[in-house]
């Protein structure tokens, strides 16, 4: 038991020495910001001091949760749909060479379209509700997931496939025991990238028209020059993005534990 405690303490100490300098730098930055705004007497609608942003956060904390929930819901649903469709398509692309030759170039080319420009069209098609936002996030997530998962499936060890077949395994066995597990780390790598951007995608879609959400909160604050409230929203978006990234990371640790082994020691 003591070794577990020791190791945990050691890890905490290592983490502190890893992130300590960065945290210190951030704190200094915020302090410098506060002092500069006060000394230079900058107008609050240009750049509010951190203390003013904190006040705005406390003032709007009763209305904020509704907006946060709306945006998070859009982001999470978008990730789920985008990942599910992307993973399914990846299996089809990896399994059917003809489909891959037809669709893969189209998919890659489609990525030159910035997804944001689709937002107004999605609103025309799906209205001002949740759907166009979820679709935009899903479109955003779908591509990196499809590409990394397809690469992961195609990159599976040929000899492992041969081994399972030599055991009398069917195509299904090969998919289940070799292809999917070897593609999972790539899937999560793609998901980590897209999860980070999903909140931003939802917010941008909300700018175009929404009944609720952080995007709407920002547009309204901008219209009334409440810059402090805009900073509150930015802080929340950053926090939510980091939280989603951490969530995907946690899911990766749970579903691909073999990728996170501690270096082996003493077992000869």
């Amino acid at each position: 038991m003591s070794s577990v405690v020791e190791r945990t303490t050691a890890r905490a100490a290592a983490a502190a020495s890893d992130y300590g300098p960065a945290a210190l730098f951030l704190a200094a930055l915020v302090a410098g910001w506060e002092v500069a705004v006060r000394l230079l007497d900058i107008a609050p609608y240009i750049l509010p001091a951190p203390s003013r942003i904190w006040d705005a956060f406390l003032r709007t904390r009763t209305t904020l949760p509704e907006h946060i929930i709306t945006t998070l819901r859009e982001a999470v649903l978008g990730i789920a749909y985008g990942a599910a469709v992307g993973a399914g398509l990846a299996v089809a692309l990896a399994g059917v060479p003809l489909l891959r030759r037809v669709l893969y170039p189209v998919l890659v080319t489609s990525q030159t379209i910035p997804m944001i420009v689709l937002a107004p069209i999605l609103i025309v098609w799906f209205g001002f509700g949740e759907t166009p936002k979820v679709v935009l996030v899903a479109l955003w997530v779908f591509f990196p997931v499809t590409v990394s998962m397809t690469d992961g499936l195609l990159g599976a060890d040929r000899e492992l496939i041969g081994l399972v077949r030599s055991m009398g395994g069917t195509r299904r066995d090969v998919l289940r025991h070799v292809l999917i597990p070897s593609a999972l780390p790539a899937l999560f790598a793609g998901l980590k990238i897209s999860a980070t951007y999903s909140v931003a995608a939802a917010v941008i879609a909300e700018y175009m028209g929404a009944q609720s959400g952080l995007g709407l909160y920002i547009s309204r604050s901008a219209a009334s020059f409440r810059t402090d409230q805009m900073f509150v929203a930015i802080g929340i978006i950053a926090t939510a993005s980091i939280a989603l990234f951490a969530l995907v990371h946690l899911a990766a640790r749970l579903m691909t534990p073999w990728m996170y082994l501690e270096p082996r020691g003493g077992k000869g």
Partner: protein
Amino acid sequence: MPAIELHRISHTFAGTPPVEALREVSLTVEAGEFASIVGPSGCGKTTILRILAGLIVPTAGEARIGGRSTIGRPGLAAYMPQRDLLLPWRRALENATLGAEIAGMPRGEARRRALELFEQFGLRGFERAWPAQLSGGMRQRLALLRTFLLPFDAILLDEPFGALDAITRRTMHAWLQDVWLRDRRTVLFVTHDVEEALMLADTVYIMTARPGRIAETMRVPFARPRPLDIVADPRFAALKERLLETLDRAVQEG
């Protein structure tokens, strides 16, 4: 009915230029026999095993396991490739039971039988380890264990100890002989190590260089179980001498 049978197998790998790997190879392994194929690198030893495993369709000839053709039909023999090929995403015990699961053995029974073998193979205590946490020798033993757990009567081993150091290799020879003596399944063992072949096999097939043909078939008369120090026996040395001569001749001819 022979357990393993090759009848005039020829195989040429397509490509530019095409590579003729095997020419009219015939051999027969009786049930319960331990046979070994010895030959220089690139003589097509691995190709023979992959044909018997149903993974390569030969250009010509017939291959049978227990009387059933393996041409384009995998799943008749327990095949252990050269690399240990453990699945990194399965713990040691789950790796061991993979083949048994695919063959449809109930999970509980597969695990019970695997656990018994963990003891025999010196892997006890490592059931929950990930492959990446095992040493090279343990990985090789686990791959061998997985092969022996497959519910097939014929076992095909491709240089199973090739990656091991000399000391571990000797231990593994004793182990393999032990395990094999227990249920006497048919084994076809491919190696380029002459001493290993004589130590383990009842019959040794010597192959020529590419295109591979059977140059000579040699019986190994020593009683079982064979002690590890049989290598010091003058009769063993004489046999080894003869085998090496044949091999040298075979390489030059090929």
